[in-house]
C-alpha cells in the first residue's frame, strides 16, 4: 500500500473488540494496525505517518486520556477518537476539551465509526498540509541572507526604501534590490503577504 495511505491505529486491551473492529475497517478498505496497549503503540513508532488513533478510554497501562496528553506533548499529533464501554460524561468532556475528534461508545455502529475515522483523516490531512506549508516558509526564510533578514524586518513595518536605507546605512538602490530578492525568495507579490508570513512564522515559533 502507498505509504501515504492513512492508517487507523486501534489501541484497545479487549482482544475480541480489537479483532472485530480491525476486520470491519479493513473490509471497508481502511488500513489498520492494532495494539493491546498505549505503550505498545508508542514503541511501535508508527506515529509519524498519516492516520488517526482509535483509543479505548479505560485500559490498564496508559490510561487513555493520559496517553492522549503524552501523545500531544511528544510531538505526535495524530488525531484521537476515544471509545469506551462506559458512557461517562465527565471523561468524555475532558477528552473533547483536550482536542479529541470524537467520543464513541461500545457497541459502535458502523456508520458512526466510519464518520469519526473520516473526520479524523480530514483533520490529520489539513494539519499536515499546514505543517508542510510552515516548513516551506521556514525554509524560504532560512534561505535569506543575514542582511536580507534585516531588510525583511524593516519592510514588514511598512517603511519606505529611503527610510530603511537611512536606518541600515545603505543606499536606497541596494535596499530596493534586497526587497526584490526577498519577495522572490519568499514567493510573494506584496508586502501584505510578507507581513502575513512573518506573523505565521512568529506564531509558530512561540508555540
Amino acid at each position, binding site marked *: 500500500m502507498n505509504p501515504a495511505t492513512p492508517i487507523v491505529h486501534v489501541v484497545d486491551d*479487549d482482544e*475480541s*473488540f480489537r*479483532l*472485530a*473492529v480491525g*476486520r*470491519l475497517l479493513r*473490509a*471497508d478498505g481502511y488500513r489498520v494496525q492494532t495494539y493491546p496497549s498505549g505503550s505498545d503503540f508508542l514503541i511501535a513508532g508508527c506515529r509519524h505517518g498519516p492516520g488517526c488513533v482509535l483509543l479505548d478510554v*479505560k485500559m490498564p497501562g496508559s490510561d487513555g486520556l493520559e496517553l492522549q496528553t503524552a501523545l500531544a506533548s511528544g510531538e505526535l499529533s495524530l488525531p484521537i477518537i476515544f471509545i*469506551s*464501554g*462506559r458512557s461517562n460524561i465527565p471523561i468524555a468532556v475532558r477528552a473533547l476539551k483536550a482536542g479529541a475528534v470524537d467520543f464513541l*461508545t*461500545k*457497541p*459502535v*455502529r*458502523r456508520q458512526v*465509526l466510519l464518520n469519526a475515522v473520516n473526520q479524523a483523516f480530514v483533520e490529520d490531512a489539513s494539519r499536515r498540509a499546514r505543517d508542510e506549508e510552515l516548513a516551506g516558509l521556514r525554509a524560504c526564510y532560512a534561505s535569506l541572507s543575514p542582511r536580507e533578514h534585516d531588510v525583511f524586518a524593516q519592510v514588514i513595518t511598512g517603511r519606505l526604501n529611503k527610510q530603511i536605507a537611512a536606518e541600515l546605512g545603505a543606499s536606497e538602490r541596494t535596499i530596493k534590490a534586497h526587497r526584490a530578492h526577498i519577495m522572490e525568495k519568499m514567493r510573494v507579490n506584496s508586502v501584505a503577504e510578507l507581513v502575513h508570513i512573518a506573523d505565521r512564522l512568529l506564531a509558530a515559533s512561540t508555540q
Partner: protein
Amino acid sequence: MKPSDNKPVAERKLISRIDELLFSKADLWKDHPIVITTVVLAALVQCGLLTSLRINRARRRRTEQALLASEERYRNVVESQPDMVCRFLADTTLTFVNEAYCRFMGRSRKELIGRKFVELIPPQWHRQVLETVSSLISKREAIHEEHEVLLPGGRAAWHHWENYPIVNQDGAVQEYQGIGQDITTRKRMEELTRDLMHSSRLTLLGELTASIGHEINQPLGAILSNADAAELLLEQDPMPVDEIRRVIADIRKDDLRANEIIHRIRAFLSKREANLVPVDLNEMARDVVQLVESEARERKVVIEADFTRGIPPVLGDRVQLQQVLLNFILNGMDAMDAASANQRRIIVKTAVFGPEMAQFSVSDNGHGIPKDKLPRIFESFFTTKKEGMGLGLAITESIAEVHRGSVSAENNPGKGATFRFTLPTAHASNGERQAPGMASNGE
C-alpha cells in the same frame, strides 16, 4: 367570830357586802338560775372561742404554708417539665403556658397569654387544629395531632400535641389542656431516612447498572462490529468464506462471554456476604414497617400489619430479608400511585407455611401485574415502570436462592397483587433434611 371584827364600820360593811356576794352565791343561784347559767355559759363559750380562734389562726397559718408549699411543688413540676404544657379556651386563646412552652415557642409568657395559639401556626395547619379543638368539645377524650408552628424569625418547627378537655364538677368543659413535644428533630430524621432510602436504592442500582453495562458492552461491541464486517465480506467478490466463518465463530464466542458476565454478576449479587442466623420474622417486619411509615403517610398509604404470633425463627440474613420486604412494600406503593388517596392499602403479613417454613407477604390494591408480564417479572432488567431498572425483583430472587427459599407473585382475586417470600425455619435447616410428609421429632 370573823377576824374582820376589829375593822372600822365602813370596811365592815364592805366586807359583809362582799361576803354576801361571795357566800351568797347560793341565794343568787336560787333566785336567778337562768341568768347566771347564761352568763357563765357565755363566759365559757367566749373563752373557748378565743382559744380556738387562736388555735385556728395558728393552724390556718400552717395550712396556708403547707398549701403554698404544695402549690409551689406542683408549679415546679409543671414548669420544669421538658414537655410543653398549656391551657386554652375553645377559641384557642391561651390561658396558661409553662416555661417549656415559652422556651420552645421562643416567646415570653406575656406575649403568649391571651393570644390565640392558632396565630402561631402556619395557615395550612389551621383547619386540622381547629377541627381537633371542636372534636375535643364533643368527644371529651384526648386527641393527638402533629403540626408545624411558626417561631419568631420565620423558622418553623414540628410539634406533637396531646389535647384534652378539662371538665369541672358540673361536667361542663371550661378549658382545654395540651401537652406537647418538639419533634422537629424526629421529623428531620424521618425526612433524611426517606431520602437516604431513595438515594441509596437508586445509587446502589445505578452503580450496579453502570458497571454491568460497561462489562457487557465489551463483548456486545465486538459482536456488532463483527456482524457489520461479515455483512461487508459477504459483498466481496470472491466471497472470503473462511474469514466469514471465523467472524461467525468469534460472534458466538463473544455471546457466550456476555452470558458468562451476567452469570458472574448474579452470583456476586446473591452471595453478597449473606450471614445466616436465626431471625424473628415479626421483629424484622416490624422494623421495616416502622422505617417506611413516614413515607407511607406522605403517599397516603395505609399499612396494615397482620403478624402471626409465635412463628419459629427462620434462618436468614436479616438485612437481606429487610431489603426484600422493603422492596415489596415500595413496589406495592408504586402500584397504587394512580389509585385515589383513601383507597391505598398495603397488608404486610407473616405466617407459618407448612411444617418447616415461614412466609412473609405484601399485598396491595393497586393496578396489579399484567397477565402477560407475570411469568417474566423476576427476570433481570425486566421492568414495567417507565423509570424502573428492573433489578429489584431479580435481586430478590437471588436472595431467595441464598436462603434456600422461594419468591412468588400473583394477582389478587380482587384488586392488586401479592408478593410472597418463603423460607425454611432455623430448626428445619439445622436438622437433617427430611422428606416432605415425614413427621419431625416423632410427633
